[in-house]
């Protein structure tokens, strides 16, 4: 039991006053001292260590010292303390029980006989859920509106094949693609692909003896690259993580496609020679006109996967 405020304080020989204040230790959160005062003699209040307390009973604190020793305890100096309301010490208030007994306030009349408190609590939560739940789907749809745009299978003119002079060398073709996004005015963005005038050998490596089919989102074949057309076009997007790669000369590997981001390296056929890429470069549908005019379908595939997943 903690010494109560206003308890009488008795030394071994006589009563010396009452507990006027209690001092807590901020680290152990225990009472370290009681302040004894009000003995009528008008002397200073004394600060008595808790270790001097012999016994605490209801309304009485017995010390193990004679009253003559009380004078030897230091006088209490109020300036050296703050109240527990003026300081923030975690969990301190839970350890303070210096009032004698509980301090109460009445429950309002109207609250005394209310049954079904749990019912009302659950009812409140249900109303909250009924407000929130119907909103979830519309909000999700609202945010998802632009996420799954249909694929565009239109042909784009990107230049003339007579720009390519040498076989099996990557040549970059830059072109403008018209985009119309939601409410925005139609705009043109710069894009690029790499085109190869392939030698029969390279062509064989790219097509492996088979024509190459391209599908729309329903799986219907929309175009087939014939294996005897000597032009191969690769999407400008690196299949590793979507950066733009370049045609570069490599000290060991010779002329290669190299992506500066994570250093994936591909040969002219698009095959991965080195680096982290999970699949070869993505070949795109290509159509070469009689005058050498090149048209492609601008497709993009998800990067970082072993198989192709078309997203544009």
């Amino acid at each position, binding site marked *: 039991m903690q010494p109560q405020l206003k308890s009488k304080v008795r030394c071994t020989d006589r009563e010396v006053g009452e507990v006027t204040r209690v001092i807590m*230790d*901020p*680290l*152990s959160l225990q009472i370290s001292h009681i302040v004894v005062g009000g003995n009528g003699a008008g002397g200073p209040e004394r600060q008595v260590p808790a270790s001097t307390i012999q016994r605490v009973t209801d309304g009485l604190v017995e010390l193990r010292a004679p009253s003559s020793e009380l004078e030897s305890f230091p006088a209490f100096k109020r300036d050296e303390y*703050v109240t527990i*309301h*003026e*300081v*923030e*010490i*975690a*969990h301190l208030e839970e350890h303070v029980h210096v009032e004698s007994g509980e301090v109460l306030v009445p429950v309002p009349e109207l609250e005394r006989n209310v049954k079904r408190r749990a019912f009302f609590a659950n009812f409140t939560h249900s109303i909250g859920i009924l407000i929130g739940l119907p909103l979830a789907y519309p909000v999700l749809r609202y*945010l*998802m509106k*632009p*996420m*799954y*745009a249909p694929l565009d299978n239109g042909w784009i003119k990107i230049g003339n094949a007579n720009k390519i002079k040498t076989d099996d060398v990557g040549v970059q073709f*830059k072109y403008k693609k018209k*985009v119309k*996004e*939601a409410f*925005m*005015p139609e*705009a043109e*963005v*710069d*894009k*690029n692909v790499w085109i190869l005038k392939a030698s029969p050998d390279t062509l064989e490596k790219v097509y492996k003896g088979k024509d190459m089919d391209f599908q729309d989102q329903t799986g219907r074949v929309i175009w087939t690259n014939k294996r005897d057309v000597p032009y191969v076009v690769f999407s*400008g997007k690196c299949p*590793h*993580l*979507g*950066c*733009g790669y370049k045609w570069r000369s490599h000290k060991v590997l010779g002329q290669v496609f190299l992506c*500066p*981001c*994570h*250093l994936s390296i591909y040969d002219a056929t698009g095959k991965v020679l080195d*680096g*982290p*890429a*999970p699949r070869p470069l993505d070949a795109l549908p290509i159509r070469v006109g009689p005058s050498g005019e090149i048209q492609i379908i601008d497709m*993009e595939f*998800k*990067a*970082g*996967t*072993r198989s192709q997943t078309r*997203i*544009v």
Partner: protein
Amino acid sequence: MNGQPTALEAIVAFVDERVGLKQIQAKMLNEPVPGGSRWAYIFGSCLLFIFIMQAVTGVLLMFYYVPSADHAYASTQYILHEVDYGWFLLSYHFWGSSAMVMMVFAHMSQVFLWGAYKKPREMIWLVGLALFGIVMAFGFTGYLLPWDQRAYWATTVGVEIMDKTPVVGDFMARFLKGGPTPGQMTLSRFFVIHVMVLPAALMGLAGLHLFLFRKAGPAGPFRGTHAELKAKTDYFFPRQIWKDIVAMSAVFITVCSLAFIEPVVLLEEATPDPGEYHPEPEWYFLFLFQLLRLKIFSGEFGQFLGAIALPGAFMALLAALPFIDRSPERNIFKRPVALVGWLIVMISIVIFTVSAIINREFLD
């Protein structure tokens, strides 16, 4: 003193009677710091300071910035080249984000090394980890807003990485991009996340972080007897606040200097054709970027391992830390696994960052 309060005193008394200001102030400032104030405890306050400065400069930038694909670049250039002191505010905001990341690393390291995540402070640590995620998300979303090539490509690659998350990756990536490729919808989304969602989340969680910190009380030093700690204990004000304010001034001067010496310069406007630009993320993501170049993280599975599983497992380990490491020992010199682990992580980050920088030379 004639006993009559002055008009100012009367106003203060009037407000205090109704608000309880003096008690709030006393509670804020009179927090005993076990073992006394230290320079090691400045990081949390510095983070708060940096955040406030980011909020102020960020709001100012929004007076001119337009989050649209056809105006974001032009409006940012306008801030940089036309608006008085626009270059300074934008550069402060830019370098402030780096300061924030540095300070988060310092703060987490201090808490880790002092063993301050242990019981009863597990919740503070968990909320702190969420705040760490928010700070990184701030960096990632803010990076896109100037809409230059650097911005566009960091986002392209960053979102492709998220796409590799099993099951929800595709949805997450499309949700963030607002479509299959980065464009206006991406800019709108990153903008609203950067200026509304993340600040609200950060303020809420930082409030909770502080509340939990006050509830548990400061951990104090990891060694010293009860009597020693008690003898050295002081209040948060004035000694700790003095140290905090000195540190904040140092941060302020450093960020200002960086803004002056190395002001923000934009690259070409964003476009899906990188041209001669070699994409690279902000410096604090460089180690992850370099990590993904490693041969062991090649292929579809390797990429999942390096980009998702490894960082994910690391964060999960940090979250589980206070529940795995239940020994009450806080002295870092008696926790060899923790010390060595911290050193390995820090050294790896430095090595990978430096090698990413060295690698730049070989690309041209």
